[in-house]
């Protein structure tokens, strides 16, 4: 149990830069999730800590020890792989206790410890099975058990749930979280699945293009994304981005769609003082869908509806021309619309974000976005 520090880690493969400059600290006992699209460098970052990949530059510290050049087996780190990486010729208990075997622990003790760990991951009845006979979920539990048995200082997990089916994924997700909290072991977890990241992590490390884009709690990266990339990557369905021009209090899209003209409230307009042209980001649930014309609303046409139980996703086309604006809107399932129906959208203005066109950075809104969300919800009810 230890703090992990990446200090200016860089990794190049030939001329290709996999990881450019990683500086981040994961505190003792913290569950950190490295999140990003494939190829963003998150796995490389994890493997540098494991010792399986040698960074080109920079240092990695466990607590106060520089481990950059320490052999993996002397780092006291355990890792769970996406493909489970079980030893095919060993049975379950032999797999789980293999880290003890190489440590020279006698067979009796190994079996005993394997049994204890198997109970924690709830596979004690499978101890004598061959790993070939196990289902995906069971294999993943064996892999977890093997990682736990040595009580490592740090857990590394590289997309451990990626090969499981959706239902099992959700089940294993909560189990991993409970285990991690009970054991209190510092954990770094790699995933490209933002839902998995949000539900598991104490701290999200959002990466893109070999660099960290934002570090923060799941709430923070969701409600106060540092830049356009984070805003677009976190949240499902994706935030709607519209490039707009501001004319006094009115914003209009830069490209077409004359129907989209929104008068901003004074308070909201004040945020974008000094930005005449910027990009707004609106999450699908921050639109309000009306079936009749209302004040300050955008007229559009329903392209498709996707029911999701209590809610539905509605793709709305705004603008009559060849290249209409396509917006994704989340609405209660009680609203009854069909393809080609005419609808009107209003925006919960206090909840939109603005992004600088050049840097992609979010234009500061001031105050706390979470409070704004709470306030607008209270108002709606």
């Amino acid at each position, binding site marked *: 149990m230890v703090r992990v520090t990446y200090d200016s880690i860089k990794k190049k493969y030939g001329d290709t830069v996999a990881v450019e400059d990683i500086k981040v600290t994961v505190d003792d006992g913290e569950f950190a999730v490295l999140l990003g699209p494939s190829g963003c460098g998150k796995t490389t970052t994890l493997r540098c800590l*494991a*010792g*399986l990949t040698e960074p080109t530059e920079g240092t990695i510290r466990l607590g106060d020890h520089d481990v950059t050049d320490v052999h*993996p*087996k002397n780092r006291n*780190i*355990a*890792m769970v*792989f*996406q*493909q489970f*990486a*079980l*030893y*095919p*010729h*060993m049975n379950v208990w032999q797999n789980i206790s*293999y*880290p003890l*075997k*190489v*440590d020279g622990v006698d067979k009796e003790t190994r079996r005993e410890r394997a049994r204890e760990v198997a109970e924690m991951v709830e596979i004690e009845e499978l101890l004598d099975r061959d790993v070939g006979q196990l289902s995906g979920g069971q294999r993943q539990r064996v892999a977890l058990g*093997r990682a736990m048995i*040595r009580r490592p200082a740090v857990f590394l997990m590289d997309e451990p749930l990626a090969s499981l089916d959706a239902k099992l994924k959700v089940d294993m997700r909560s189990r991993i979280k409970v285990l991690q909290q009970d054991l209190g072991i510092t954990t770094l977890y790699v995933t490209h699945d933002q839902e998995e990241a949000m539900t598991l992590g104490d701290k999200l490390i959002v990466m893109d293009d070999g660099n960290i884009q934002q570090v923060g709690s799941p709430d923070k990266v969701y409600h106060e994304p540092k830049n356009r990339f984070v805003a677009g990557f976190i949240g499902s369905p994706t935030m709607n981005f519209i490039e707009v021009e501001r004319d006094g209090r009115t914003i209009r899209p830069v490209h077409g769609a004359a129907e989209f003209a929104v008068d901003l409230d004074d308070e909201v307009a004040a945020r974008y003082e000094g930005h005449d042209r910027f990009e707004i980001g609106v999450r699908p649930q921050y639109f309000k869908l009306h079936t009749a014309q209302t004040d300050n609303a955008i007229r559009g046409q329903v392209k498709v509806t996707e029911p999701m139980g209590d809610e539905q996703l509605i793709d709305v086309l705004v603008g009559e021309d060849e290249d209409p604006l396509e917006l994704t809107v989340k609405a209660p399932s009680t609203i009854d619309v069909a393809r080609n129906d005419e609808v009107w959208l209003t925006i919960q203005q206090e909840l939109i974000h603005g992004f600088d066109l050049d840097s992609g950075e979010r234009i500061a809104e001031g105050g706390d976005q979470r409070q704004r969300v709470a306030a607008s919800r209270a108002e709606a009810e």
Partner: protein
Amino acid sequence: MATDTQFGSASEDAIVSAGDEGPRERLLLWIDDHLKWLLTLPAVLVLFSLTFVPLLRALEISLHNYIPTGRRFVGIGNYVDLLSNGDFHTSLWVTFKFVVAAVGVEFLLGFAIALLLNKKIKLRGLWQTLILIPMILSPTVIGLIWRLLYAPSGLLDFIIGQPLLGQNVGWISEPQFALISVILTDIWQWTPLVVLVMFAGLQSVPDHIREAAIMDGASRRQRFLHITLPYLKSLIVLVLIIRVVDALRVFAKVYILTRGGPGSSTNVISMQMYRVAFRFSNYGEAAAMAVSLLVVVLILAMSFVKIAGVEF
């Protein structure tokens, strides 16, 4: 009847509905059901005529004694004679020494080379190609090459015998060296096969399993013993079976290098068969040896598989 489907163009013949069985459709259905047999039939016929027919013929020959005027049925007489035949026993012993030494060294050396190749060494492609060359030469050519090397005052005498011992070694003319020389030639020829198979096996060990073992704290030696070796078990058995069975039947090399001599020092079993059959025209006894050898090979192969617990 054509079935109209919007999912691609299934041909008219392929879709035959149950209630629609004209003679043509019935034939198509029969072919469809028996296609696997029809397709393998040519190969089965070739294999049958090339393996089973000669085998049965050998069995038949082994039950007869051949005399200038014809042949005489002797039952298992030839087999009984083999039990007390000193030359046969000697050739069995020579063959045993040859197989154990040749295959043993081939396997260890080949595996070691494969492990070296599996590292990121320079010019790996070039090494791989060079190492495979001996395997693709015909045994006769190899025999001729090595006969030149082993010849009195030949290259080996020139670089080893004369500088170190001050005389020719007599690689294939001295009884105490002849078998070793034949074994060396076999090692030279067949180590590449082991390299090839084991290298392919090493390459097939998944990275994540190797890395999991590293993370679990296994040393290089432990990873080899606990992970790599068990992972390659079935390949090891396979390559040993191939080599043992093939070494038991060694002939061309011995024939060209030593003709089984000097004395009976390199008189392996197939050489003995050749002598008995074609020099002494005792076809029945030679065939009995051949059948016995087959039985030995079968038993060996099956016990290998059994010991290793491998299923192919």
